[in-house]
């Protein structure tokens, strides 16, 4: 690579062209800004519908629980590419690491809104309680964010032609990646463990001693789905060719992971003898059904080669998995707890506004970084021989 003078592309300073998406983006950001004002000035009471009976809402249920899960592509692909040494997946590794790094940063932002005392975010690092799942999650997330930052750094070093630090970071990369996978395994599952303490509150369709296992497997699934989702979107946004054979092969892995997940879920329900609950006409039954259907449809579809090889169909499957995942986390974190808490919770507009702003912010930052740093160019690094091999190899599809 010839050393080039680094140049960042910021949006031009002239008034940006008005498009529907930009107007929506601006509206979301403005409402988020006003909601932030409410949060700061009037506390959680003035900005949320939380109560003594329902202390966790959208900011935990979505921003934290879904945020961490949707960023799971980072550890899944790192494990596939660097630990299992499946080089073919390399082109989608960097976008996955970027998503993960951004995801965790945004989870922290969400936490700053949700914590009663955001100025004490650092307390768990100093004041220990090893019996607390939240303590373990706090440590894992902090350490893993650091690992992700280090995994992201090579993109920055390459951009600015810093070869020395690049070499240095390559030297520690293997232990770093193993550490990352372990930390992710721990906290992805621990987000499920968090709810083991509420057996009397969480509805029986979701409360199970194996929640941590279910959370971990579903995180892997959604990590893969998010990888397909990102590649599809960025190929449209940046006019890149879609790495279809590669994504199709990820779709194949996804189908297997989803099957495993659904099977464990089935075994769990049958061992706990709770199938009878499905006969009740309750909100929980329908939400559970939604979650399972959204998961089962892509599972069946992804087993078919013609679905995997059609970009739109593959993308639709990924989107369904993402929605199934979000439904599941919201069910465990919010709706499944309502009956047991003896109350109803509907987020206040300001809670929704903050959440949407965080998501919109995430999209915008991803776009900016992908435009300016070698995120999607990692393919160049892989030898051309290998790339050709991929294209010729029908097995990889």
């Amino acid at each position, binding site marked *: 690579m010839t050393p080039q003078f680094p140049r960042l592309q910021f949006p031009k300073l002239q008034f940006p062209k008005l498009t529907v998406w930009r107007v929506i983006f601006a509206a979301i950001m403005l409402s988020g800004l006003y909601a932030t004002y409410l949060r*700061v000035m009037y506390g959680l009471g003035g900005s949320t519908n939380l109560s003594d009976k329902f202390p966790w809402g959208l900011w935990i249920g979505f921003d934290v629980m879904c945020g961490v899960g949707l960023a799971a592509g980072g550890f899944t692909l790192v494990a596939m590419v660097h630990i299992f040494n499946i080089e073919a997946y390399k082109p989608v590794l960097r976008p996955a690491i970027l998503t993960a790094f951004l995801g965790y940063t945004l989870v922290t932002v969400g936490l700053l809104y949700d914590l009663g005392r955001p100025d004490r975010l650092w307390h768990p690092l100093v004041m220990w309680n090893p*019996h607390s799942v939240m303590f373990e999650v*706090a440590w894992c997330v902090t350490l893993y964010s650091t690992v992700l930052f280090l995994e992201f750094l090579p993109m920055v070093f390459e951009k600015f032609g810093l070869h020395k630090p690049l070499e240095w970071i390559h030297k520690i990369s293997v232990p770093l990646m193993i550490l990352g996978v372990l930390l992710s395994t721990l906290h992805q599952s621990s987000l499920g463990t968090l709810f*083991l*303490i509420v057996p009397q509150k969480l509805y029986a369709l979701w409360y199970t001693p194996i929640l941590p296992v279910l959370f971990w497997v579903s995180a892997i699934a959604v990590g893969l789905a998010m990888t397909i989702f990102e590649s599809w979107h960025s190929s449209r946004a940046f006019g890149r060719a879609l790495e279809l054979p590669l994504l199709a092969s990820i779709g194949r892995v996804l189908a297997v992971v989803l099957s495993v997940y659904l099977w464990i879920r089935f075994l769990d329900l049958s061992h706990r003898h709770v199938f009878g609950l499905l006969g009740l006409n309750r909100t929980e039954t329908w939400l559970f059904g939604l979650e399972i259907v959204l998961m089962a449809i892509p599972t069946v579809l992804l087993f078919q080669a013609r679905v995997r090889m059609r970009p739109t169909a593959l993308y639709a499957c990924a989107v369904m998995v993402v929605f199934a995942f979000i439904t599941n986390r919201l069910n465990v974190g919010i709706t499944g707890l309502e009956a047991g808490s*003896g109350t109803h919770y509907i987020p206040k507009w300001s809670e929704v506004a903050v959440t949407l702003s965080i998501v919109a912010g995430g999209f915008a930052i991803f776009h900016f970084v992908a435009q300016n740093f070698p995120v999607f160019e990692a393919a160049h690094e892989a030898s051309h021989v290998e790339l050709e091999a991929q294209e010729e190899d029908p097995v990889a599809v």
Partner: protein
Amino acid sequence: MSRAMLYDSTLCIGCKSCESGCAERWGLPYNDKIAAEETISAHKLTAVETHGERYSRRLCMNCEQPACASVCPVGALQKTALGPVIYDADKCMGCRYCMQACPFQVPSYEWDKRLPKMRKCDMCYERQSQGKQTACAEACPVGATVCGERDELLVEARKRIAEKPGGYYNKVYGVKEAGGTSVLYLSAVPFEQIGLRTNVPMEALPETTWRVLELVPDIVSTGTVLLGGIWWISNRRAEVAKKEGRRR
């Protein structure tokens, strides 16, 4: 030996002296409007409830093995040897996991404050460590709430049931609930009829998460060896393949 309280709802006359005694001890405002509230909240740490012609009291159960203390990521909540579960507001970061985890939905939050704290009864830890009674027990004119050693109170409770079998529901609430609590209840009717939770697990809740958490060292050590081994094998394969000039 640890301190506890016994509340005998058959003796309670609903005068709410315990409420005002509690408010005074915490320096919280107390007036007719607050007295009329029948739920505990950040400004009312104990509340007398009316269930038909019977009364009941809500307050923190100060569990023997409190879920709140086990889940607190910063250790702001502690079960003391004396009995009370105490709270250190200077540590608390406001994650509200204690509120989510409490099987009795006791902890309350100062939702409207900019720098909020969690609030709950701490069974008058300070007074009790000086050998005094809890403020509510001291305020009670009829001895419906008494304060003492848990073992002795339990004996006393069972004695009351034995002496007047027709007057009491034949159980003491708090013996096994959530693994045992430091507040014990007696009632004339089944406990759910005076608003007590009967769906509370009979095991200590911290066990539910500890069962998983204690596996962490095993997962980390096994995982390191497993992932390291997989990397070692797959990397070696790639190197060999490269040397032999084959395409993988």
